[in-house]
């Protein structure tokens, strides 16, 4: 029989904390033995997108009801999440608590769960199909800054782990004719064919062009990783595409793994330590997103300038420059696929070709349905979002470009390097006990 993944009729949030503490201790003991006993507790940091069209933020119960889940209040900001589904053990259809939701503020929610990773990821992935919700996008830039400013300073002898992931899913051999074929295909319904999972036998049988597909783990003492990293990055560009960072616990043994789409997995024996870490990451992301939006649209918000009226000309641009240019056939494939329904870039638009390797797209972010204007060339991307839209689109775009198009990129928002935007955390973001 599988271990329970939710507390039984918790009277308050602390009963849930105690339940997750127990699971965390068992999880950590399993990790120590190298034999997992229970699924690890994990958190998905979600953004509620309410800025579009001046909409008011929605309460979590309304958002999740539309997604087929029921939210029951435990206190004002803490609630259980249940879904009605067939129990695999007895075949009966019944409601089941899959996790707990904490409302950090009107914009950010944490979903704590002990479901197995594959199920939990699938569930959250289906939720964030809704235009009300988005993942939080910890781009490689932000993960690198987190490593540089914080994790790398937590002790040279502590264990750390960095995971790098890059897959050039649009890469085509130079002499390929497939790119032309794809470009001519105007069907907008074909789903993105590239799955996230590791290839199985079936995939190995498939005839596909060989593409760059790199996944590296550097699990070592923090001091050793720091000493080696910069040299390795110089020699191999996929090592710029940082996908996951392990944060050693500040207070005890074990660690927390942070992934690009805002998933944090607890590898300590304490749920409270985990929650503190998630809160810390939320404050960082919140600050980064606020700064992104300030930088992107400050020219517009300053309409009442003391020196006369001022007219905006849309927001400042995000400029992304590739470390190495794309080949013409790779560029064609990217342009033809990135705007299809189901593609991970989640963009809508009809590319207007201005040259062999240049298009303009006056389109929309298909996930949040907010306008975006894009210039794509073999050398990079220029993106402009109108005022009042959600800055998450910038972070999703940078994250996806680095993971799927070019692993080494430079980026600027307006005249500010993207690194400086993602490293401007206020002093009070530092870890603190909030229990």
């Amino acid at each position: 029989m599988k271990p329970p993944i939710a507390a039984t009729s918790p009277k308050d949030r602390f009963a849930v904390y105690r339940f997750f503490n127990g699971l965390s201790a068992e999880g950590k003991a399993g990790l120590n033995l190298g034999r997992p006993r229970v699924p690890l507790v994990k958190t998905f940091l979600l953004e509620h997108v309410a800025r579009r069209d001046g909409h008011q933020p929605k309460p979590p119960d309304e958002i999740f009801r539309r997604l087929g889940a029921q939210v029951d209040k435990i206190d004002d900001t803490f609630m259980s999440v249940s879904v009605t589904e067939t129990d695999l053990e007895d075949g009966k259809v019944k409601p089941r608590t899959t996790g707990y939701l904490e409302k950090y503020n009107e914009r950010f929610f944490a979903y704590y769960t002990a479901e197995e990773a594959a199920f939990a990821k699938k569930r959250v992935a289906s939720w964030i199909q809704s235009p009300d919700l988005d993942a939080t996008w910890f781009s490689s830039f932000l993960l690198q800054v987190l490593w540089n400013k914080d994790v790398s300073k937590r002790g040279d002898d502590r264990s750390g782990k960095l995971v790098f992931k890059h897959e050039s899913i649009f890469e085509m051999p130079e002499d390929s004719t497939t790119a032309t074929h794809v470009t001519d295909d105007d069907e907008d319904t074909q789903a993105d064919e590239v799955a996230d999972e590791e290839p199985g036998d079936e995939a190995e049988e498939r005839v596909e062009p060989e593409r760059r597909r790199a996944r590296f783990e550097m699990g070592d003492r923090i001091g050793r990783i720091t000493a080696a990293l910069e040299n390795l990055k110089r020699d191999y560009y996929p090592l710029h595409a940082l996908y996951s960072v392990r944060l050693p616990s500040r207070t005890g043994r074990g660690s927390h793994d942070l992934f690009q789409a805002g998933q944090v997995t607890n590898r300590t024996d304490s749920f409270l330590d985990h929650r503190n870490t998630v809160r810390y990451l939320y404050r960082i992301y919140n600050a980064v997103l606020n700064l992104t939006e300030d930088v992107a649209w400050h020219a517009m918000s300053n309409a009442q300038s003391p020196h006369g009226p001022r007219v905006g000309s849309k927001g400042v641009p995000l400029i992304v420059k590739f470390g190495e240019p794309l080949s013409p056939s790779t560029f064609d494939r990217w342009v033809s696929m990135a705007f299809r329904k189901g593609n991970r870039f989640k963009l809508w638009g009809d590319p207007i070709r201005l040259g062999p390797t240049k298009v303009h797209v006056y389109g929309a972010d298909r996930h949040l349905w907010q306008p975006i204007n894009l210039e794509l060339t073999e050398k990079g991307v220029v993106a402009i979002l109108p005022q009042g839209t959600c800055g998450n689109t910038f972070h999703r775009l940078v994250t996806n470009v680095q993971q799927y198009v070019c692993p080494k990129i430079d980026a600027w928002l307006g005249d500010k390097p993207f690194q400086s935007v993602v490293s401007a955390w206020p002093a009070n973001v530092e870890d603190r006990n909030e229990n």
Partner: protein
Amino acid sequence: MKTESLLGDPVFQLNLLLWMAKEQPADEYRVNPLFHKLGFKIRFIEDPFNFPETERVAATASGLSISTDPEPELILGRGVDGAALYIEAKKDSFGTQSSNCKQARGHLLATGPAFAEVLAPLKECLLCYVLPADKCQLMAKTLQDLAAQLISKTLRPGRHSVTGLALSTGSIVYSWDAAFRAHTGMAEDFAVLMTDVDDETDPSPLILVFTDEDSYNPMMTWFYRRAMLEQVRACLLCSLHNWEVGQPYQTSLQALLVKTTDNIFKYLGHKRQTNLIRLVRENLFKRIAEHWKDKQAGMVDLSGEVFTVTWKLTGQKDEFLDWLEDRRVTFAGDKPQPEEPLLFDDSD
């Protein structure tokens, strides 16, 4: 794509100028943010200058042909010292007998003492003509002559400068005269605006402002119209996706254009506004209304300049949006064919 001819295209020029005022990295820019680096911000785009009454009366009484509502492409202002640039872009230079002189006299007069009177706390203003570099010399002479005419009638023109755009070894270069240098504080005489320009690729940066009436080239007109219509379509799709089934969605075309252009529409002159409304009404909204008229009677309504759509069922909304999103549904018409030279000239 002949980049050389684009240097005189008014929409290209205007967008280039806007990009020059946009925050971008100092070196890895899309278009060299020269105005931004100099501290200038956009104040007005294609907005007619409103003369003080005394200047208006004096201009009329002078007997010279002077526009009393001249419309520059752009007015930029600098907070730190109140300096302003009043920018007029032209395809070509003209002489003192040209019909363009009426507007040019208006610009000269607007940038005199009238400017600070109307647009305080902006103070010192420089009239800045932008045109292909090989046209600058004649333009400078014409402005000088026109300013002298105004002075002879005891009117008070402002200072003027002429700046040029040129294509030079794969780059677009912007150059200026001594008056521009003195006014802005520039140390150099020119700057590279864009690099990697080749003849196979249209060098246009993302279009920030669209005007329908100016382009001389049918291919560019098609591109600008399509860019504008795609922006309005995207804006409409975004609004509709976020709209609930059961509630009628209603928008005036004007309101949608204001939203699409981030308010720039409000600052355009009346004629340009009317043209834009007509463009989106005829090409986008009429097409939508006609397509759905027979399929789902009563679902879509276009009355004058007000568009309404009502879905009673989720399926209707999905069907409507699937159609509007379908990239095979186009609204800008067919791309014009480039003019091919005749193989045999049979004119004689």
